[in-house]
């Protein structure tokens, strides 16, 4: 068994592309090896700022020999056909075997050397590598993410001979650009390679780089009684920008802490890729962590000082924006929104604000919030889009609006509603919980969905350019997690759009959400089919129905429902079912008992549903089980007496109808 080691050494690969590139390399090589029938024990890839690396262990040095059977002409086929077959198969007639009147040839194919196969598949993969953006360099024709400089390719400790765009594969790599020796390093295999890189100040594994960043940064903070503010996205990015991470603690002017902490953190993160640092009280401290890509001779003093100066210039800008923005009332920025197109077919941002304002007022009543306050918050919710700070940091939309509103004297609930109205933006972001905030957040999302549906921009397949699925999921989560009632049809009725397709879209999104949480999506269908538009009630009923169907009564009733359905459809095939009004049967006793149970149940189930006591409705249905079972046991539906048959069929229809008050059991699967 042998090992393959491949390194593609280039100029700096954008950090955001590295994980994807490692995955693509893994996938493509695994697929090509499988196609070449080369099994292996393990295949690992690594990505860093200047290299993509692949190590495959446990490869055979040669493909297995293969014996392939090929079907030939029938026995007694014309001479010509036989000769042609023998020629293409490369065997003599004596070697053929006959089965069921057909000749078969067995063709032996010797396995090729694995190294030969690798010399073919690597150039193919490299030439067609799916970088999100790629370029050519110099006189070259290869498209790579940035200029490619070296290809290290060893199989079984030998260089695999091939070249790509003038770069011959070798057993050489390079270490850290500044800290390394500068000379190419010769390696013999993966472990040697990894160790040689480490000796030349390159950490191969991104997870290891992350670990070192966290450890180093935390230690530096701890020494001064501080803690680093964790930021996984930033950590990922920074780990893709350094080969030899050296976290340094820097200082900043405490005066900047007068800015909102989100502003300080965002400026650090987006402009500088620094981590924020908190004090013992959990609030931002006047420090930051910068991760250098080398251990400098002076211990990083110059780097930390330089980083502090740049940050200070950035925060001065932010301070300038903050003061400029505060000088103008948010309300006055509505004028600017009149000049901002929301969407060519949907008018300006100001028109959108007006729609949200109306919806927010209506939804506020449903959430038991103050409609006037909701309308006020909705009116101001988008004004921060016209501020300098949000122009600079779009991710602070909403948050800045909240700060500016509070600073300009809005009541705290209104400011919070402005701040939170985009939430939740992802499946893990908490939902707003204050009634006023819920109202504005729901109105914002409902307007997006209704507006884009009205112009034919409903999501299709993987296309969802306006993130409407995320908006619908946000609505559903706000409703479910707060346990509030949002009658969708009422909301749609109050909007200026017709809402076509919106209810079905919500049903679909709810199904996805409940399925992700382990619920049965067929039950969502079964409940949704009744035309309910109350997300909370639907979700609750799905849960109750699920428990009911898991129990013995439920399972049996479902079986009875299906049995009744089967009989009805079997009878319907024979001819139109008799139109019969269910009458009190003469006998037998089992039929009479079922009749009485069904007729008594109808009002009972209705009443329970009226009172929104779904569990009671279902347990009422459970009383049907004994008479249904007894009926099927004792009574022949297909009575020779026409009137009897008609009445019994009507009785079964009655059973299905009364059950159908609670869910469309025909949609329940399993």
């Amino acid at each position, binding site marked *: 068994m042998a090992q393959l080691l491949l390194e593609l050494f280039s100029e700096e690969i954008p950090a955001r592309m590295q994980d994807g590139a490692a995955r693509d390399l893994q996938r493509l090589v695994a697929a090509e090896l499988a196609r070449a029938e080369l099994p292996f024990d393990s295949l690992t890839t690594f990505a860093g700022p200047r290299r993509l690396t692949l190590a495959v262990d446990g490869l055979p040095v040669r493909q297995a020999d293969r014996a392939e059977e090929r079907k030939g002409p029938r026995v007694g086929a014309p001479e010509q056909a036989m000769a042609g077959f023998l020629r293409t198969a490369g065997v003599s007639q004596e070697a053929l075997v006959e089965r069921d009147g057909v000749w078969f040839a067995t063709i032996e194919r010797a396995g090729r050397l694995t190294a030969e196969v690798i010399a073919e598949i690597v150039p193919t993969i490299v030439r067609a590598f799916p970088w999100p953006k790629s370029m050519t360099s*110099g006189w070259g024709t290869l498209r790579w993410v940035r200029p490619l400089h070296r290809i290290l390719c060893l199989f079984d400790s030998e260089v695999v001979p091939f070249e790509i765009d003038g770069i011959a594969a070798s057993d050489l790599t390079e270490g850290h*650009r500044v800290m390394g020796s500068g000379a190419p390093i010769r390696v013999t295999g993966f472990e040697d390679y990894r160790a040689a890189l480490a000796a030349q100040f390159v950490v191969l594994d991104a997870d290891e780089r992350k670990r070192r960043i966290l450890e180093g940064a935390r230690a530096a903070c701890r020494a001064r009684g501080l803690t680093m503010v964790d930021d996984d996205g930033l950590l990922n990015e920074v780990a893709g920008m350094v080969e030899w991470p050296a976290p340094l603690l820097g200082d900043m002017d405490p005066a900047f802490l007068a800015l909102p902490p989100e502003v300080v953190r965002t400026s650090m993160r987006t402009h500088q890729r620094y981590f924020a640092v908190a004090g013992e009280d959990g609030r931002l401290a006047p420090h930051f962590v*910068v991760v250098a890509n*080398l251990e*400098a001779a002076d211990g990083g003093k110059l780097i930390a000082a330089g980083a502090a100066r740049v940050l200070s210039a950035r925060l001065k800008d932010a301070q300038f924006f903050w003061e400029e923005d505060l000088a103008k009332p948010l309300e006055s920025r509505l004028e600017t929104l009149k*000049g901002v197109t929301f969407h060519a077919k949907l008018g300006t941002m100001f028109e959108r604000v007006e729609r949200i304002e109306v919806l927010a007022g209506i939804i506020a009543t449903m959430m038991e919030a103050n409609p006037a306050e909701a309308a006020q918050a909705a009116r101001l919710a988008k004004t921060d889009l016209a501020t300098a700070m949000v122009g600079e940091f779009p991710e602070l939309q909403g948050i800045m609006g909240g700060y500016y509103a509070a600073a300009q004297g809005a009541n705290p609930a209104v400011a919070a509603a402005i701040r939170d109205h985009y939430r939740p933006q992802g499946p893990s972001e908490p939902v707003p919980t204050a009634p006023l905030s819920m109202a504005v957040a729901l109105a914002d999302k409902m307007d997006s969905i209704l507006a884009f549906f009205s112009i034919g921009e409903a999501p299709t397949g993987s296309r969802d350019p306006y993130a409407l699925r995320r908006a619908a999921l946000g609505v559903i989560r706000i409703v479910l997690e707060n346990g509030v009632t949002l009658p969708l049809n009422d909301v749609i009725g109050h909007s200026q759009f017709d809402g076509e397709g919106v209810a079905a879209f919500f049903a679909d999104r709810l199904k996805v959400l409940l399925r992700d949480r382990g619920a049965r999506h067929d039950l969502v269908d079964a409940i949704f089919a009744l035309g309910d538009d109350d997300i909370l009630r639907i979700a609750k009923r799905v849960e109750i129905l699920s428990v009911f169907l898991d129990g013995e009564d439920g399972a049996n009733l479902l079986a009875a429902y299906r049995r009744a359905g089967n009989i009805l459809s079997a009878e319907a095939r024979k001819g139109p079912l008799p139109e019969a009004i269910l009458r009190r049967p003469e006998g037998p006793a089992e039929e009479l008992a079922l009749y009485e149970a069904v007729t008594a149940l109808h009002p009972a189930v209705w009443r329970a549903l009226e009172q929104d006591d779904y569990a009671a409705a279902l347990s009422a249905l459970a009383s049907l089980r004994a008479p249904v079972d007894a009926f099927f046991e004792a009574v022949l539906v297909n009575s020779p007496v026409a009137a009897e048959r008609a009445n019994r069929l009507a009785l079964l229809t009655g059973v299905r109808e009364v059950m159908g008050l609670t869910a469309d059991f025909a949609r329940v699967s399993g």
Partner: protein
Amino acid sequence: MALSFQDIILALHAYWSERGCVILQPYDVEVGAGTLHPATVLRALGPKPWRAAYVQPSRRPADGRHGDNPNRLRHFHQYQVILKPNPDDMQQLYLASLEAIGIDPKLHDIRFVEDDWENPTVGAWGLGWEVWCDGMEISQYTYFQQVGGLDVWPVAGELTYGLERLALYVQGVDNIFDLAFNDPQGPDFMTYGDVFLENERQFSAYEQEVADTDMLIRQFHDMEAMVPRLLAARGRRGQPLVLPAFDHVLKASHLFNLLDARGAIAVAERQSYIGRIRDLCRECALAWVKLQEAAA
């Protein structure tokens, strides 16, 4: 001791001159970026190798702050290097150029951060990085892929050093106008402010408040109309007058920037202006490439 502003330029000139670059003077037509010098934008096209370096004063009228902002200028200097085809060791060459102006890569954190460059007014784009020194962007580094909508091949590598920023960093100064322009120990010491502050004040006022927009619009149309005429005209050797035509594109582009700074261009018109300049630029690029190929 830290280099003065002019010593940085002289050091870069010496460095790139030793590496085979033609050291050019700034182009004498107003431009918004060093890339627009025909030595870059036109010479990047076609099959001929080319190496050049020059300082280009760049004018961005909308950035004018009357000399009041310590970090912002409407007229600043870019040091521009174009290497076509880009050599294999271009990154090393660049890093060594930083050493030549006193930035030691063993003491500073030099980082190549993804930043794909694009200039829609000349239909150009490339892949590359912003180069950071201890978190500050000091250069733009690009492998040109297209100019004027045409493929650049062989590929040209472009380096743009922001000279004022670089000097702020090298000299450890916070205000551009306090930069040492020449030797601070010498008897004739001048700061950057001594040389350029009054220019910033007067031109900010001119560009943002006084420039006559009707006249600028007229001039824009004149420049625009002249480009196809020059491309249709022929010189003594039967060649189209691409270089004069391109000058007119540059002038049109600067007039557009002035109009923009005067707030005379509505949001809806902006794209149309940019598109017109891009189309003119593309015509020049096409004519230039044809000329190069005919000569080759």
